[in-house]
């Protein structure tokens, strides 16, 4: 049986023990929260027109060289996929070396299973789909980071803090698009930054600049006069895996149901 005195003592200890760590946390007032979430003038968005892509892979080459991603490593911030539907109803997809050297042969790269020759006469449809980080409005990769090493900037770009990343790999697993990987040299999580150093200097991202056909465009979604914004508002566009609720900010023209 606990006495009244003992009960009060124990309550005080427990409450005190709980309060110490709580006091160490930052408590945000609604005003402060609103202030730090204040609208930035820019929201970067990306438009991929798959109709225009010819699979030359200049975007992947430019990205790797611009961003110091080891050129021969089997990892890339952006990549180009090829989809081929043949008349027997079979769907083939590949991305040899992430499309770095372009698509120069008709055969499909099946990795260890070798190359699958495709008879051009049997092709019903075939097209290329460039992929990159979707810079989601609700990035699951950021949510899972246990140390706060990845975050969404006020302009909507998801970045990685290389000095803070512990390399646990949660974010790589959490990304539904497979857009993250380990940087072979820094040993931290690596991803597309929309060429953050370029777009803030008024240049397009390296991939968008390298694309000869305008299949990749980057723009400010908050500027109604931006050609990218206009296309997204006025044309039929799609995002990848909308069912995940991630709200991607990379929009696609001419996407097909097979593209994942």
């Amino acid at each position, binding site marked *: 049986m606990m006495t009244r005195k003992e009960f009060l*003592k124990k309550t005080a*200890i427990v409450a005190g*023990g709980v309060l*110490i*760590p709580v006091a*160490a946390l*930052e408590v*945000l007032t609604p005003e402060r929260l609103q202030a*730090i*979430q*204040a609208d930035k003038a820019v929201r970067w968005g990306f438009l991929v027109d798959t*109709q*225009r*892509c*010819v*699979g*030359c892979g*200049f975007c992947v080459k*430019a990205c790797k*060289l*611009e*961003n110091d991603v080891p050129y021969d490593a089997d990892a890339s911030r952006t990549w180009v996929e090829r989809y*081929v539907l043949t008349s027997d109803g079979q769907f083939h997809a590949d991305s040899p070396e992430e499309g770095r*050297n*372009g*698509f*120069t*042969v*008709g055969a499909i790269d099946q990795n260890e299973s070798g190359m699958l020759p495709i008879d*051009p006469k049997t*092709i019903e*449809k*075939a*097209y*290329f789909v460039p992929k990159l980080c979707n810079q989601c409005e*609700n*990035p699951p990769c*950021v*949510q899972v980071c246990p140390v*706060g*090493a990845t*975050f*969404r*900037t*006020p302009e909507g770009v998801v*970045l990685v*803090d*290389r*000095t*803070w990343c512990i390399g646990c790999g949660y974010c790589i697993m959490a990304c539904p698009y497979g857009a993250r990987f380990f940087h072979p040299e820094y040993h931290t999580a690596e991803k597309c*930054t929309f060429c*953050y*150093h*370029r777009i803030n200097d008024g*240049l397009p991202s*390296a991939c968008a*600049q*390298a694309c*000869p*056909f305008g299949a990749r465009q980057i723009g400010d979604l908050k500027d109604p006069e931006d050609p990218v914004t206009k296309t997204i508002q006025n044309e039929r566009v799609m995002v990848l895996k909308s069912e995940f609720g991630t709200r991607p900010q990379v929009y696609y023209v001419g996407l097909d149901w097979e593209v994942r």
Partner: protein
Amino acid sequence: MSGHVWRPLLVVLVLVGLLFVFRHYYVPDDFGVHAGGYSYGWYRQSAIQDWRWLPIRYQGRQTCVKCHADEATDLQGMPHVVIQCENCHGPANKHPKDPKKLTIDRTRELCLRCHAKLAYPSSARGGLRGIDAATHHPGEECVSCHNPHKPLLPTPAASDVNVRHDNQYCRPCHLDQVDVVTGMPHQIIYCESCHGYAGNHPTDPAKLTIDKSRTLCLTCHKNMAEHNVGRVCTTCHDPHKSSLQFLRFQP
């Protein structure tokens, strides 16, 4: 409360306290909640600047044409005008300071990125001019025949069949012959001087008529008028290799 409760509790409290001291010194001052709130904005603010200050490697065409205006003029109206200079010439970085010279990718593989024929009906790739790399002069560098800045071959007006073509016009298809004559005295002669005007060959005419007559050779080689009178010169002489091995068959 007895000592066996207080002692471990004290140890725990001290550890928690040490943790906060460590945290205070270890965590940067600008680490905290920023734009995006707790869900997406829990980070070190200066990490943004880390990304901001990376060097720009690909400078873009606008930078190149400031000095290389001639090349820009060459490309005007050409299909390759849409291709960034640095796609083939490599990233400029701080050129002309560093690097002083760019390394041009002249490989066949570079051109094949677009010009390997892939007849894809539902992609822009299907509409690009393409070759079968296995049969179209395998092993040759594309740039030995095609000028990447002026990729379109000159096409004469159909009405005027007497417009003379540069020998390089013939080279893409007649590589062997044009290369053989290069370095020989006859390299200064137009292919069409002997082979006839190409017009819109191979469409029209499908085949050219070669002038093998003695008269044609004697136009220049006048002192040979008495040499083996009545014979056709090309019986013994190879006009493409006229210099060193001027005889088809060594006696």
